[in-house]
């Protein structure tokens, strides 16, 4: 009996002392943290992808709480919804950023871009780039070793086995990891567009037209036809390479039709039913294009 009492007493006293020590230590070393940081973090997607430019969601939440003007901050993963929810917690204003998506600006498939040699080194685009220009005559295009796929934490990009080019899926959240990983700078974040419709030049070859065309049949040759055709001045040509500015582009698709090498790609558009009439129909007004889009809303995404 005595033993039991002594044991209980000893352990009880020990426990109390330890609890007291813990309590005072916790009080003494307490760090004040704005409780709103936790709340904002709660509202964020918790993907910790770094797409916002901060090391993780918590750092982003801290930045949101601390800075008065949060218009420059954006969580590409969560999008407008998340941002307004987070802003509501803080009572701050947030400007809705247009959702972005990654696009792969190379279409050098095996047929389009014949191989001139074969790579046999470590399976990494970064290693391959540091060694040489690539397996084909085009030293700008995709190397196909899949560094972009490796870094994607959202499973939103995969290598197409037939073309050995990466394909972005619709669940891309535009965190930008693949953009940073690609040593050839082929991947770009562009406006996702209404219904995911987007038009872009799927080439980054800056060589002269003849050279580029010889290396790859779907290369942009810098002929400027699209630039002249564009009614909105959305296309510029620099270093033998056309670029469509997505802030000006109204998705009229005229450029797609005139490109002699089919270097300009359209994604998620309905198939054109009457091809020969298309240039004339699209020549009218941007509104016409819009109605065209609406009328074909029953069309499903052609890419998946």
């Amino acid at each position, binding site marked *: 009996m005595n033993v039991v009492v002594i044991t209980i007493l000893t352990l009880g006293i020990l426990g109390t002392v330890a609890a007291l020590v813990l309590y005072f230590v916790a009080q003494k070393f307490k760090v004040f943290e704005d409780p709103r940081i936790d709340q904002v973090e709660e509202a964020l997607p918790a993907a910790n992808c770094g797409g916002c430019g901060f090391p993780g969601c918590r750092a982003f939440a801290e930045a949101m709480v601390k800075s008065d003007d949060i218009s420059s901050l954006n969580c590409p993963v969560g999008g407008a919804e998340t941002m307004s929810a987070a802003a509501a917690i803080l009572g701050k204003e947030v400007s809705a950023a247009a959702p972005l998506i990654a696009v792969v600006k190379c279409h050098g498939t095996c047929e389009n871009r014949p*191989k001139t*040699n*074969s*790579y*046999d*080194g*470590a399976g990494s685009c970064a*290693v391959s780039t540091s*060694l040489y220009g690539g*397996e084909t005559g085009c030293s700008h295009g995709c190397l196909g070793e899949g560094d972009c796929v490796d870094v994607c934490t959202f499973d939103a990009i995969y290598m197409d086995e037939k073309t050995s080019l990466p394909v972005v899926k619709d669940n891309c959240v535009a965190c930008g990891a693949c953009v940073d990983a690609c040593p050839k700078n082929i991947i770009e974040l562009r406006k996702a567009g209404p219904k995911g419709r987007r038009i872009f030049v799927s080439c980054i070859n800056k060589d002269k037209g003849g050279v580029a065309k010889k290396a790859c049949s779907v290369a942009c040759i810098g002929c400027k036809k699209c630039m002249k055709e564009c009614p909105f001045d959305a296309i510029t040509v620099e270093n033998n390479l056309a670029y469509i500015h997505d802030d000006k582009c109204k998705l009229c698709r005229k450029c797609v039709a005139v490109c002699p090498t089919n270097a300009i790609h359209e994604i998620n558009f309905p198939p054109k039913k009457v091809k020969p009439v298309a240039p004339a129909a699209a020549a009218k007004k941007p509104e016409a294009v819009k109605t065209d889009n609406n009328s074909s809303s029953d069309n499903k995404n052609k890419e998946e």
Partner: protein
Amino acid sequence: MSTLTISPSPHVHSGDSVKKNMYGVVIAMIPVLISSVYNFGIGALSVVATSVLACVFFEYIIQKYILKGESTIGDGSAIITGLLLAFNLPAVIPVWIIVIGALVAIGMGKMSFGGLGNNPFNPALLGRVFLLISFPVQMTSWSEPGKFPMKFTDINSGATPLGVMKEALGNGQTPDQILPDLPSYTDMLWGFTSGSAGEMAGAAILLGLVFMLVRKTITWHIPIAVIASVYVFAGILHWADAAAYAPPTFHILSGGLLLGAVFMATDYSSSPMSKKGGIIFGIGIGVITIAIRVFGAYPEGISFAILIMNAFVPLIDKYIKPKRFGEKPATAK
């Protein structure tokens, strides 16, 4: 001509391969196998065959159905694990225990960490220690050595020299009184003592060591460090009190020390990368072995010593670096 291949330098390779290294170790273990069969007969042969087959089988199954990778049994590492496990078991142990040991060794010790090269502990030793703790009776029932005995169930719990020594010292006898009753050092070198299937024949093990050193499969650092530190540490104890501690030569020749030092401690993935690290690792094993043998409850400690030091390998690798070029201040004028 096909398209030219482009790859980073170097454009030549030595032709060395995992297979060559692994089968080199297997060849180095053949003398041990021969002496084991000579001493323990059919029993040893069946233990070895069961163990190797079970290890290869489990590796194949796990690789194919759980990890879903390409088969890796061809590289020979499962054979090594199987042989080592067998060498660490009594020659009269029931087959089902061997199979359990093989499953633990391959499944828990090797494949659960990602297979070849990723195991932090020596798989065979993990299997052995698992069996030793789970089946202490069967694991310590040794058969007497003979000249190729043909009988299968020749159980004779004639304890190992280490066991005899430990018990007698505990009873207050001095090593000098005990040693004459034990097999002579020469007998121990040739393996004519009771013990596990492959750990007794010192000469055969040393032959394997020479083979591996010549083929540059391993370097001398780990085995020599283990043996030397055992000799020194046991020697100090013996020198301090000859009546209470066995002589160092006895410690080296008895038990699984040589087998452990040569084949188990040198396991690639569970030993340190640098040579300096290897020496520290070896000394640790030697000291812990003697500490367990002399002060611990078990008569033998090499298995535990190696496993304990295996756990220190990442730490050793982090802090013990190879000698860098230009580390010493240059002798410029």
